[in-house]
């Protein structure tokens, strides 16, 4: 056991050349890799949606010029390692971790996978089929919670580079060719797009070797995405994906015009954490919907795009220029769907109009100061947070949290809520059955009482229910689209109304 030295290094002087993120931990027997490309699904050419993911997938899950993917699998196996891949809108990251015993061997293969890809037709067909199957079978048929989130994305970013699933559409994927993949690789796998991330007990001269190797990539970079303004919804815009199901999934939200780089982020973060901290009892929505009423498994809210990483902590390397606020209501019995939607929106209205209570402000701030200490535990997580910190302009974002939060006031948080959140302009994605009757009920604002297994519910809950069940929602019939679930992700955007 001994002290290690944290040397943060990020070479980024020349935009045409490689950058690196180094986190040496002397004596640690593991080495974690994160090779990040500043290119994501937002860079997919029109009509070729899914191309970035398919290209990266062919690198991470296909052969090299010298090794078939079968041979790679065989060589990785005794080392208990693999190459992982995450693709988001503006970045994709290749990950791997290996014991020092096997560093040279693993790195030799990883290098060949990224720099000398085999681009074999059989790998291409296999991965393309998997990507199509994911969209039309797994996402639509087997995973309603995620399906709801993806419908929200389609609504929020219609006509925007973020506006398609990272995997593309069935139609665009079917038209993609191996030549498209090769062309995308050639166009975007440029030195200036790549950040080499290394953490752990690697030898001192190892980073230089990696950087020298990756310098075979052409110099240059992909021009920054010129993202159009995000479109706020026109009142309540609702899409109901109809399928046979006993439970209704809900996701809703709207663009927020700030990111982690903004000073206001920290104040709004406290508000978001209070209102819906991911999978924590702290979440106000969780308390109202699950704890008090037992309606579902959980209810959360986020002020930026959120992907859960290890345990419940946020995953890294999903940085975006544009962000959105969202509420996620986990599936609940169809009979309670109208009530729960009203409940979420009334609580949001109260948050916007009344702000966060003083005691909740104090509690949430203390919580975040402590909880964020758990975010970066593994080598990979530490490296990921380091990379994201630099993306948003911080030396160390998690250290910044410790600096910024103590000086925030209750008033700062309430001002941020007023500035960025609203309760009457939302995109709402619902997955349920008997959609037309739900639409009719929403438009007609008919009362939506719920019943409980407990015949002796507390009086204050029942009184509050009377308010929830008649809370008027301004739902205009022309703003509610009922669409067959099976038609999603076939083509770009939402399915056509019939």
């Amino acid at each position, binding site marked *: 056991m001994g002290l290690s030295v944290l040397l943060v290094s990020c070479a980024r002087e020349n935009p045409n050349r490689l950058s690196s993120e180094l986190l040496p931990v002397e004596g640690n027997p593991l080495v974690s890799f994160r090779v990040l490309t500043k290119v994501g699904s937002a860079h997919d050419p029109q009509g070729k949606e899914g191309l970035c993911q398919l290209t990266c997938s062919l690198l991470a899950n296909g052969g090299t010029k010298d090794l078939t993917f079968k041979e790679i699998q065989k060589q990785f196996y005794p080392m208990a390692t693999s190459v992982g891949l995450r693709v988001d809108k503006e970045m994709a990251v290749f990950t791997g971790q290996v014991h020092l015993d096997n560093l040279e061997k693993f790195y030799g293969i990883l290098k060949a996978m990224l720099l000398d890809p085999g681009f074999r037709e059989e790998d291409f067909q296999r991965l393309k089929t998997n990507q199509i199957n994911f969209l039309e079978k797994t996402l639509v048929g087997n995973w309603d919670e995620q399906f709801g989130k993806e419908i929200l994305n389609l609504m929020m970013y219609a006509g925007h580079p973020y506006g398609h699933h990272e995997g593309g559409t069935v139609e665009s994927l079917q038209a993609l060719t191996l030549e498209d993949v090769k062309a995308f690789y050639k166009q975007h796998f440029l030195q200036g797009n790549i950040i080499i991330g290394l953490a752990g007990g690697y030898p001192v001269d190892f980073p230089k070797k990696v950087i020298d190797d990756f310098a075979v990539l052409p110099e240059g970079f992909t021009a920054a995405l010129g993202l159009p303004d995000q479109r706020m919804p026109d009142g309540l815009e609702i899409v109901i994906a109809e399928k*046979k199901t006993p439970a209704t999934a809900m996701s809703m939200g709207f663009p927020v015009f700030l990111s982690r780089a903004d000073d206001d982020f920290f104040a709004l973060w406290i508000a978001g954490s209070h209102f819906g901290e991911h999978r924590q009892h702290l979440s106000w929505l969780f308390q109202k919907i699950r704890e008090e009423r037992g309606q579902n498994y959980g209810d959360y809210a986020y002020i930026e795009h959120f992907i859960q990483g290890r345990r419940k902590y946020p995953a890294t390397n999903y940085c975006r220029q544009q962000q959105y606020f969202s509420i996620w209501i986990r599936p609940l019995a169809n009979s309670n769907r109208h009530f729960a939607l009203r409940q979420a929106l009334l609580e949001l209205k109260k948050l916007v109009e009344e702000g966060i209570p003083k005691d909740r402000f104090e509690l949430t701030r203390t919580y975040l100061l402590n909880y964020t200490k758990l975010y970066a535990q593994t080598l990979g997580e530490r490296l990921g947070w380091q990379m994201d910190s630099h993306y948003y302009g911080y030396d160390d974002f998690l250290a910044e949290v410790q600096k910024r939060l103590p000086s925030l006031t209750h008033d700062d948080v309430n001002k941020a809520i007023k500035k960025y959140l609203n309760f009457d302009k939302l995109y709402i994605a619902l997955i349920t059955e008997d959609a037309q009757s739900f639409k009719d009920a929403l438009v007609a604002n008919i009362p939506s009482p719920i019943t409980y297994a407990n015949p002796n519910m507390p009086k204050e809950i029942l009184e509050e229910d009377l308010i929830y069940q008649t809370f008027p929602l301004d739902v205009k019939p022309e703003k509610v689209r009922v669409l067959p679930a099976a038609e999603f992700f076939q083509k770009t955007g939402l399915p056509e109304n019939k």
Partner: protein
Amino acid sequence: MTKQLSVFLTALLLMFAVPSILRSSGIFPYEYKIKTLDSGLTVVSIPLNNPDIISHYVIVRSGSRNEVEPGKSGFAHFFEHMMFKGTKTMPTEAYNDFITELGAGTNGFTTDDYTCYFVVFAGRENLEEVIKVEADRFINLYYDEEMLKTEATVIEGEYYASVSNPSRRLSETLRNTAFEKHSYRHTTLGYLEDILDMPNQYDYSQLFRKRFYVPDNTILLVAGDFDHEQLMGYVHKYYDDWNPSNYTLVTPEEPPQTKPKRAHYEWPTRTLPLLAIGFHGPAYSDEKIDLAALDLMAEIAFSRSSALYLRLVIEEQKCQSLSASFSDHRDPYLLVFNAVVKKEEDLPYVEEAILKELERLEQELVDEKALADIKSNLKYSFANALGTTDGIASSLLHYLNLTGDPGTVNRLFDLYDKITPQDIQEMVKTYFKTTNSTVVTLSGGKAK
């Protein structure tokens, strides 16, 4: 920079020592202390002089295995939810505020054999309070019938959260078909009809608690930045009043399967077809070679580097995935092969390919080189998980549940080292008999 932050960051710089794997004599390299108190509570302590994080786990050896009475499936998992209802002196709101201010990563989860409650937090100065609060809820849990009724409907909500996932249905169907008597017949979530009846089970919940939420059925595991003697002082101070039950669980004995079984589930929406083949197998042991040999066989013949995987997934592209899962259980469980198949018409082809591979393993000895690769993989996989305080603690949970002794990890890996190709062949012949098989398929997509 605040002093607190400075201390925290300094602590983060400390390294974890994981020895070079193939040269190590014990796969689990950390020193631990284990003590069983008079009440029967087992305490496993792993002081680590590294990052300022402490992982506190309570393992109650209560899982779906313990749900031996009809109509009570899913009860261990339900009781996990009730454990968050607080005590008379610290009601749920106060408990939640304590955890929130601590900024702890906390939750519970239930498996076939045990239920686990964890609190992962920063700051050794918080250890006493965590021990005190956690001991309080294990000893003095309080909830009334109305609280139970409300929480019961949360379980229904949890059921709905994954209702669109066909893998869950496949697993439910496999267990329900393969087992006749044993409580492994149902999943941890339980049958829907039992879930819907949970609001009426207040009295049974008290009986369940009296039987299983007792020190002689519980293991406390603490790993991280603390002093062992100080920990034991807190444990005695806050746990010594907990009374044992001396209850002995008798799980129904599963009769030997005498003929092959088969079931199909028609999924209501589009899905990739799924295949599961289960064979009744042995319970976990770090002494008998049966499951250890089968573990190695599963890796050799069905892992991502195996000939069959490479053929079905990479070359022929009949499957999206293929795996073998021979999970460790306290009682004999199933040896399960799973495949996600791309086309429904290929389900019989994939089933036959798996069964033929098992026949081949009965006839031929596995390759020594493949066996060496597997042993290497298992060791590096285990070592990869040991990179953090919480990784060290959570890697032990499973084994502590099985035997109550962390030493079982090293004994198991020693056993792996001794397994020969002949051992594997013998075990394949013993367990993979057609009469011992259950095949379940799931497909659908005709409805919208």
